[in-house]
């Protein structure tokens, strides 16, 4: 199933450990292909803007962005704002995945157009569970293709 409909996951996360944990658990959940990690918002935006020119990512591929908030240079909020303001990228689903559970921050992200907001819980089982459910969720995500094919 997943091989038929590959979903590339773009993870923006400055903490190597977090990135590692997320990747491991997504793999355990069965999401094996298409995982790309960037270290901050600037890198994410650069990656998105160069996507058209570079062949490192297939244009036809479905993309889902996992976005941390607290990052150096450009943080998750600013990155989200720019992604949703750009006509070329605003269709890409964005999932906020962050330690921040401030309700105001959550509201702000939804206002800016994030699709899902997931808190990284300190309790590892809950965290794993959340990632696993996210993996399952991502498996059934199908980004509508242009022309309806």
């Amino acid at each position: 199933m997943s091989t038929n409909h590959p979903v590339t996951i773009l993870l923006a996360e400055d903490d190597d450990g977090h990135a590692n944990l997320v990747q491991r658990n997504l793999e355990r959940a069965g999401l094996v292909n298409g995982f790309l990690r960037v270290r901050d918002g600037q890198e994410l935006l650069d990656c998105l803007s160069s996507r058209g020119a570079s062949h490192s990512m297939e244009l036809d591929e479905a993309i889902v962005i996992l976005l941390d908030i607290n990052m150096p240079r450009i943080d998750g909020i600013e990155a989200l704002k720019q992604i949703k303001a750009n006509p070329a990228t605003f269709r890409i689903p964005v999932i906020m995945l962050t330690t921040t559970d401030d309700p105001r921050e959550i509201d702000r992200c939804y206002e800016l157009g994030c699709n899902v907001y997931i808190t990284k819980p300190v309790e590892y089982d809950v965290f794993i569970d959340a990632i696993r459910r996210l993996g399952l969720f991502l498996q059934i995500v199908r980004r509508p293709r242009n022309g309806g094919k």
Partner: protein
Amino acid sequence: MPPANELPAPALNQARPKRRITILRKGLMVLALPLLYQAVFIGLLLKRQHDLNDAQFWTLHTKTVMETSDHLFLLLVTQHSNLRAYILTGNPVFEDEMNNTQKNLRAALLRLKALIQDNRSQEDRLNHIAKLAQSQLEFQDQVIAEVRTSERNKAVSEIKTLKGKELMDDLQNAIDSFRAQEEKLDTERLETLRRSDVEQMWLLVGGMAVNLFVGALAAGMFSREIGSRILAVAENTRRIACGEKLPPILGGTDEIHDLDAQFHSMSDALDGARFKERVYQQTLERRASELTRANRDLSHKTQEIEMFVYSVSHDLRSPLVNLQGFSKELGTARLALQNILAGDLSDEARDSAKALIERDVTESIHYIQTAVTRLSGIIDALLRLSRAGRVEYRPAQVALPLVISRILEAMRGTIAQRNVEITVLDLAPVWADPTAVEQIFANLIGNAVNYLDPNRPGKIEIGMTERQVDDLEHPLTYYVKDNGLGIADAYLPKVFAVFQRLHGSVAPGEGVGLALVRRMVERHGGKVWVESIEGVGSTFLVAFPAKAEFSPLSAVAPRKESVNFRSRHLQCPPTTP
């Protein structure tokens, strides 16, 4: 208020005993003028009356004189006819008659003489009459003597000589002349009286006019001296009520002047009260604005603390996620290893176990160690931050070039390694805590060195600028300028916030350095800010209060208020018995 030198009279009035012109005196003066005139007028009238009486007396006098002269003439005629009768008859009755008449004649002459003794010309005439009368009498005596001695013929011839008749004619002429003169005098007196009547009429008319004029003059004087001045005082009271400026105190030495002077001192007192009120108002406004500022600062600080707690909680949670996660990973790896060890140790299983140990276990231990180091670093940073807020500062005059050279000496290794060119310009000494100053500049220079652009040779400049700073008068502003990576505009506001790291991967750190710098600078009453262009470089500026007395660290005496809130009703302290 007009100063005393403009109007010395009222101010010195009390000191210099001067004859006061009071309202009473002014009133008397105003009244006195017509009164004086009326007195003169009445005097003139009285004199006129007196003149009239005099004239009437003299008219009467003339009449008496004329009557007397007539009587005299009658007596003379009677005497003459008696003489003739006596000659004719020789009857002694006529002799007696003649003697009587003669007596009367003398009496009349004497009376007349008494009446006209004031008039020299009439007196002469009367003397002439008396002389003629005397001659007549002598003639008659002679005739009578001749009759008595029976020489009647001689007497008749005497008569016939007409001497008696001549004498009589002369007498008549003299008396006529006398009378004419007297009549003439009378006419003259009447004429004078008539003229005097006309004069009196004019006097009355003129007097009335003058009286009216003097009355008007008095009214004018009263209006000028009393009425208009009282109006001026009334106008001044209105000005006081409206808070307008008063004209100089009214001149003069009367009660109105006193009243105006009182109003002026009242106005001065009011002005003083108004001034005090204004000062109180200003003090109140200043206090209110200070309070507003304090409130703003407080809410700012509260917001900062919220941000701080938010950052700290996030930053503490991040390593915890790793600790938990990789502990679980270790557990998972342990289970997998146990499973492998429980079975036959084939080569494949051995490789799998080796891979588990080398990959998962090693990785997990690495992340756990990293997370613990990070947590410890965060806690250390928090302690440093807390210490920066609590440590007691001992301000002194700090020679900055010395401090900078010490910092550069300590960083010598890093500087040499990075190939940095550092310029230190003239730096004025600053009143601050030496340790804090060293920490501040160490942080700023350290940042400048750490975040240089590896693609070009580093240049760092430390100097001073004369920039204006809000809330600080003539501050001492130092700067640390680099040509490093620079800071994006979006990130500028967060530079001094705690646990914010822009170039997270470039250099190690917890993100508290600039937060510490700000904390320390603000405790000195100063300001720190940054100007930067991404990719070109950054300039960090630190402004300290110029003088020790402006620094919150100095033990300055509490500010004195410009207004003394002195109580008017000070109560005396109870005296000890």
